[in-house]
């Protein structure tokens, strides 16, 4: 492995399919949402009955323009749909309506940050609109292995295919690029970006070439990748497989390979000789789509603040480190949560809020498998809790307890602190009293401390905390302890 990375350069290009969140399908009025009973979301048109005609859903075009603008692509003044032919039971018409010679967007670029905070920019070839196919079901018990079933709910659901230039140079970068695309489409609110449910799908092209060489090696297309992890894993596997072939002077065969999730390997699906001739031609049922400047500028006005801009703003306005800003802006909802939380804060507390959100909040969401919008802790409550820490009402340690309670009950932190009596004892007189009591109980340890065993300070802190159920203000406590012990 070590040698490989020097000997060969990896070349990766991705084709990402983003399923759009439109209400209806791309060419008919059927419901486009996920999760209905089989074939419930179908009509004469998406089933490809004789005589039916497609009518373009304008919302699909709007979504495409949004993404095109977000990545700085050129939006075509006029574009066409084309038919892509192949036979398969999940493809009702025997062709998929897609775009070929004139896609809606050309060019554009996507930037992402590597782990070492290096920014990499990948150029896009094109973005085009197309319809999804249905789904075959083979493993239904009632079928007894003699037949398959087809569910056409997905047939005609709008997709955007986003094609990158072959500029990615490692599986890790490919994953980061794909994640960034996900961030973008979610910011734009045009796609769920859920890889498991298939609303974001990835096909990867990978080839290797000797370092320094200009021409590309023969490429392999990887399909059936349904998580970011699989994307990286499949590319890593393929990188090694191809390197080994090249090391042995064997040719890399141009082919399509399927990622086998269970075995963590890629397997041959079809080679180039069996490649389809899709016989693309302009769809005569759909007139050329004209997009005027006015429409584009209308859509441009609706664009949200995009992740990169937001990240820069977080750095400048909140004085957050790059890393924090990147994490907090990775999702629009998360960024909103953060901004909602810190609305009334001074700058010095903002970093504290960032820490709580990136740490405890994200951990909580992860554990409960929920989104930030579903967080039981509202930004207002989190803000209040942080204020309680900074004004000394509760300690950081108690705050963890309050946090856990908030996560369970959704209650206001003030209420929790009061009901549970968690208020920190900052009153010096009462603290003095408790310390005296503790020291009187532990005379032996006091002797040892005075004899130089200063480590015992922690012991006394612990004892006082035990006595106060953790409510002693740690800073005041330390001072009082030191004062009394030095007597």
């Amino acid at each position, binding site marked *: 492995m070590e040698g490989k990375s020097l000997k060969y350069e990896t070349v990766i290009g991705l084709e990402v399919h983003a399923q759009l969140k439109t209400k209806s399908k791309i060419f008919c009025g059927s419901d486009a949402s996920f999760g209905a009973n089989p074939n419930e979301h179908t009509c004469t048109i998406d089933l490809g009955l004789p005589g039916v005609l497609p009518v373009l859903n304008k919302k699909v075009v709007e979504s495409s323009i949004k993404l095109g603008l977000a990545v700085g692509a050129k939006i075509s003044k006029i574009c066409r749909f084309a038919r892509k032919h192949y036979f398969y039971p999940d493809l009702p018409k025997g062709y998929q309506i897609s775009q070929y010679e004139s896609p809606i967007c050309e060019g554009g670029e996507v930037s992402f940050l590597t782990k070492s905070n290096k920014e990499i920019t990948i150029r896009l070839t094109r973005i085009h609109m197309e319809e999804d196919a249905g789904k075959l079901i083979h493993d239904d018990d009632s079928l007894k292995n003699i037949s398959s079933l*087809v569910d056409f709910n997905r047939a005609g659901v709008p997709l955007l295919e986003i094609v990158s230039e072959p500029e990615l140079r490692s599986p890790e970068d490919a994953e980061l690029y794909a994640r960034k695309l996900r961030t973008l489409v979610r910011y734009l609110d045009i796609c769920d970006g859920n890889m498991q449910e298939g609303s974001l799908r990835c096909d990867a092209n990978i080839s290797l070439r000797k370092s320094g060489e200009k021409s590309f090696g023969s490429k392999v297309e990887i399909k059936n990748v349904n998580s970011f992890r699989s994307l990286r894993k499949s590319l890593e596997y393929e990188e090694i497989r191809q390197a080994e072939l090249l090391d042995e002077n064997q040719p890399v065969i141009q082919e399509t390979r399927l990622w086998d999730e269970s075995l963590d390997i890629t397997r041959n699906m079809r080679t180039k000789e069996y490649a389809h001739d899709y016989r693309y031609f302009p769809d005569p049922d759909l007139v050329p789509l004209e997009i005027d400047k006015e429409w584009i500028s209308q859509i441009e006005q609706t664009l949200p603040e995009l992740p990169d801009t937001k990240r820069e703003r977080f750095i400048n306005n909140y004085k957050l480190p790059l890393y924090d800003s990147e994490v907090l802006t990775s999702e629009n909802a998360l960024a909103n949560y953060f901004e909602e939380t810190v609305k009334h804060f001074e700058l010095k507390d903002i970093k504290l809020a960032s820490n709580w959100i990136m740490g405890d909040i994200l951990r909580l969401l992860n554990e409960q498998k929920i989104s930030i919008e579903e967080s039981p802790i509202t930004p207002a409550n989190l803000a209040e809790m942080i204020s309680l820490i900074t004004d000394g009402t509760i300690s950081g340690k108690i705050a963890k307890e309050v946090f856990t309670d908030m996560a369970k009950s959704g209650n206001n932190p003030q209420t929790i602190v009061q009901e549970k009596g968690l208020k920190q004892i900052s009153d010096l007189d009462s603290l003095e009293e408790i310390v005296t009591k503790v020291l009187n109980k532990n005379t032996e340890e006091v002797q040892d401390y005075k004899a130089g065993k200063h480590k015992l300070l922690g012991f006394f802190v612990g004892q006082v905390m035990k006595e106060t159920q953790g409510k002693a203000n740690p800073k005041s406590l330390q001072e009082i302890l030191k004062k009394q012990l030095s007597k």
Partner: protein
Amino acid sequence: MKEILSFSILELSEKLKDRSLSSEELTKTYFERIKETDERVHAYLSILQDDAINTAKIADKNFKKNYISSPLQGIPIAVKDLLCMKGTKTTAGSKILENFISPYDATVITKLKDAGSVILGKLNMDEFAMGSSCEHSAFGPTHNPWNLEHVPGGSSGGSAASVAAYSCVASLGSDTGGSIRQPAACCGVVGMKPTYGRVSRYGLIAFASSLDQIGPLTRNVEDCAIILSVISGHDSKDSTSSKKQVPNYLENIDRGIQGMKIGIPDEYFIDGMDPEIKKATNNAIKTMETLGAEIINISLPHTKYALPIYYIIAPAEASSNLSRYDGVRYGMRKESESEYGSLFGMYSSSRDTGFGKEVKRRIMLGTYALSSGYYDAYYTKALKTRTLVCEDFVNAFKKVDLILSATTPTPAFKLGEKLNDPLNMYLSDILTIPCNIAGLPGISIQNGITSSGLPIGLQLIGKPFSEEEILRGAYAFEKETKFYLKSSSL
């Protein structure tokens, strides 16, 4: 033949209105006529007797209440079996759809129903509208009412023959390369292909999407105008349908053609044209002149490319449009006995058994034309040449209002005569195809009878959306010549 069978739509409409005739009686008379003639003509693939009589009764009730939705209310009409009609078999003349019952109505069917017309049945046609003789129907050919040994033309052979046989008042057909006008000429009726986009194609089983148009076949030009007014207009379900306003085509039909400029393209007098047709066409030119038209000789230099362009574009689109007949969701399914995988075996068995010879020929032609490596040489080139043919017309229409020609180079040929000679069969449409290539409206009207007793057709072509002018020209000619009053002895 009963006298009421010979009445035009306008005449019938008057009688229904003053209730001297009921739609029920009229409809029943037509069913008797179908019974009497169709064993010999075979224009119908299915008869919708119960539904039709019910509709007729409703029409009568409405007449009684003085509620009249259109001049088509209560009028018995039949439609080509390429049009989807809810709850009825819609076969496209093909075995592959032999048992397909459409779950929805084509837009034109909805319009006919809304207009209160009575739909008698579905009419025979060449399979998927591919053919010029109706012999390529999977359910047996239709015979020409003028001479049963001759073809009625095609592909809307049933639509033309039923009108000529008086087994319906009027019918709807579809025209991709002449499929309305050529059979209209062969059967001595009026047939109009409207401008591409004038009539919604939604629910018309597609042959070649960029060429297909639905249109009426009638016994006279007025009837044609009435039906066209009903079926035309924008449809949100068909993106290629035009938003242009639909005029009442009947309103100005009798204004005459004084001062109208009629162009005669030299290229449309082709070699091998039947001398009687040539003569009839020349006579028609003289008639137009006496009616006040100015005759201008024009040239459409790229006419010779229209046929080859058509035989690239139409099969290419057809090969794609017919991909959906795969045996998976509807239509014929035949499991495979071959050594292929069972899925692809099922596809090929179903399509092999379900499609006829001509359809397979065109699927192969089209698939070839779209294949990688051949696409540019065939399809792209055909599209480029298509614009040349269109430009010819644009230039011609700078000088003239209408273009006049024969509809077909020969009268209806004999059954079987060209069945095994596809190239010769394709030539039947040589004068009608350019219109489709350019998306223009065209009509075929009666222009007399040959010495052997077969009808001759006259074609008028206009600018896009100039149906009114075409109908005006056709109406003037028809009133002057009275050829339309001649009917077969059937």
